[in-house]
């Protein structure tokens, strides 16, 4: 029997004091999601998901979340590079600022965003004279989603950038590659797995965004009613459309689960 084998067995034999709370934690996370299943009316599920309200909401969510991911990439990749290459003190400050939307209640984010783009907000007047309205339009959804999703992308990417380190970049420079070439041909390809993870996390977070969206974009069916909004309306509004709420909830859970399971598999394949 090899030493590695022994170590593996030792790892398996966790004390009960660890195992029991671990299983309880899993139960807490999984059981509510499983509890959705028996309540779903499977016979009407396809019809419910294809109803105009549901279709509009899904399509709006997909479009806005995709736009939010593009915004996250355009702003978040440079921000991650800046953080990863900053001096430790500056990096700590940047990281704290970037993490803030992650730990704040999204409602607070919504209030904050409204105080910028709302009619009486910081930029409200300027936007008004330009004839641009952001609040309570689909653009507000993208703004809210970008606000809450960007930390996921920046944090995932910055970790990758630090792990890759500057050694490959130094080699590329001595081979005659200028800074932008190094970034394009060495740095970004090397952090591609981290970037992919960041994009996936940002997309799933954006598509599930509720609190900030509710305040900045409202809940107008067909205009600003995303899937989470539709779920909220269906469940709380008139109370007649619980089936819609359950069906859309199930859809969000399934999409998130598939994405979260597929991405590590894709990364494993890439690593081979």
């Amino acid at each position, binding site marked *: 029997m090899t030493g590695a084998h022994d170590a593996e067995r030792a790892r398996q034999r966790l004390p009960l004091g660890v195992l029991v709370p671990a299983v309880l934690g899993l139960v807490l996370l999984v059981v509510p999601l499983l509890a959705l299943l028996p309540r779903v009316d499977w016979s009407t599920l396809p019809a419910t998901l294809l109803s105009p309200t549901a279709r509009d909401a899904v399509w709006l969510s997909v479009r806005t979340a995709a736009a939010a991911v593009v915004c996250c990439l355009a702003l978040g990749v440079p921000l991650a590079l800046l953080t990863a290459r900053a001096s430790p003190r500056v990096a700590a400050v940047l990281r704290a600022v970037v993490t803030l939307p992650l730990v704040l209640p999204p409602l607070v984010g919504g209030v904050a965003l409204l105080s910028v783009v709302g009619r009486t907000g910081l930029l409200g007047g300027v936007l008004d004279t330009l004839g641009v309205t952001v609040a309570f339009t689909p653009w507000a959804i993208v703004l809210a989603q970008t606000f809450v999703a960007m930390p996921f992308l920046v944090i995932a990417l910055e970790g990758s950038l630090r792990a890759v380190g500057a*050694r*490959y970049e*130094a*080699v*590329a*420079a*001595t*081979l*005659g*590659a*200028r*800074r932008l*070439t190094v970034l394009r*041909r*060495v740095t970004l*390809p*090397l952090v*591609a797995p981290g970037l992919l993870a960041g994009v996936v996390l940002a997309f799933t977070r954006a598509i599930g965004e509720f609190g900030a969206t509710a305040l900045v974009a409202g809940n107008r069916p067909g205009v600003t009613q995303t899937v989470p909004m539709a779920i909220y309306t269906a469940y709380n509004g008139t109370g007649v459309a619980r089936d819609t709420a359950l069906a859309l909830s199930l859809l969000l859970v399934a999409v998130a689960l598939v994405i979260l399971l597929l991405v590590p598999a894709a990364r494993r394949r890439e690593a081979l």
Partner: protein
Amino acid sequence: MTAGDAPTGLAPQAAGEGLAADVRLRRGGFTLDVDLAVPPGGTLALLGPNGSGKSTVLGVLAGLLVPDTGTVVWRGRTLTRAPDLLVPPAERRIGLLGQEPLLFPHLSVLDNVAFGPRSRRLPDAAARATRWLERLGVAHLAQRRPRGLSGGQAARVALARALAAEPEVLLLDEPLASLDAVAAPELRHLLAETLRDAGLTTVLVSHDVLDAALVADHVAVLREGRVVEHGPRAEVLGAPRTEFTAAFVGVNLVPVGFGGLRPAAGPPAAAVARLRFRPAAVTVSEQRPGGDNTWEATVRWLEPATGGVRVRLATPGQPDVLADVDAAALGHLRPGARVWAHVPAESVQALGRGEQAACESPT
């Protein structure tokens, strides 16, 4: 280097025409203070123990590190004048090959080697890359990913990549350090051959004397951030003038009076400061042999040497002495054993006082 400085073992015009670095840099408790020059087409070996600042020198030459003060000049063009002028690494045409191959994992072997030509916008980048892969005997790996290569293969590809970028100066930072006992000698010869053919100006960092012996025409020995010896290879390696270099190249250097040693020839006795002899000239026996040039010592340790055993002999209050002994003649030599050592007078070289003074004050 200013006009008034004495040349450090090189022709004066060499420094102006070739690569010259006169820099100082402080990082935490470490201070680097070196003045080095390599003539165009020449190869300088930078020797020294770990932490002596060898890699830092390469970083400064490549433009990856900015010194606190000093200059780096290549063929009359100032590349670094601290702290305000720094030509970026990409515009220096100074290649760097490190201990690890650091092949880009997301590119094929061919694309790795073509990276330099593409970055420099040279025509026919892929064809250039293929030619270098062929020269280094790894053309059959062109479509592979770096992940699957052996250490020796990766080192060859890394060398091909460095050369395909067409550098004017090549910096080698222990390129053989990560290779096994079979791959290292192979690549060492390939490296020596390739460097000779390419006619590049080269700085090679190593803690292996063999690398310097095969590849370099000049040698500089670094210790704690300072150059302690600098000159033509044969002079520095063949006749070390500091205890440090002697220990490094495996030659014994002892103060005059050691073990009652007398050289057969040399300057007048009063002018002699140090004595030098090779480990192979020392015989070790358990019984006191007859004759002069014999002293008693303790065996400190034994280590394998080509065709025998290298014995380190300790004498109280004196530097250790190395002796190469036939494995068959080893007898009962064990660490801690009391033995008698002998060197024939004709094997002992005498170093004059002036010589010693010159070498104990570097720069």
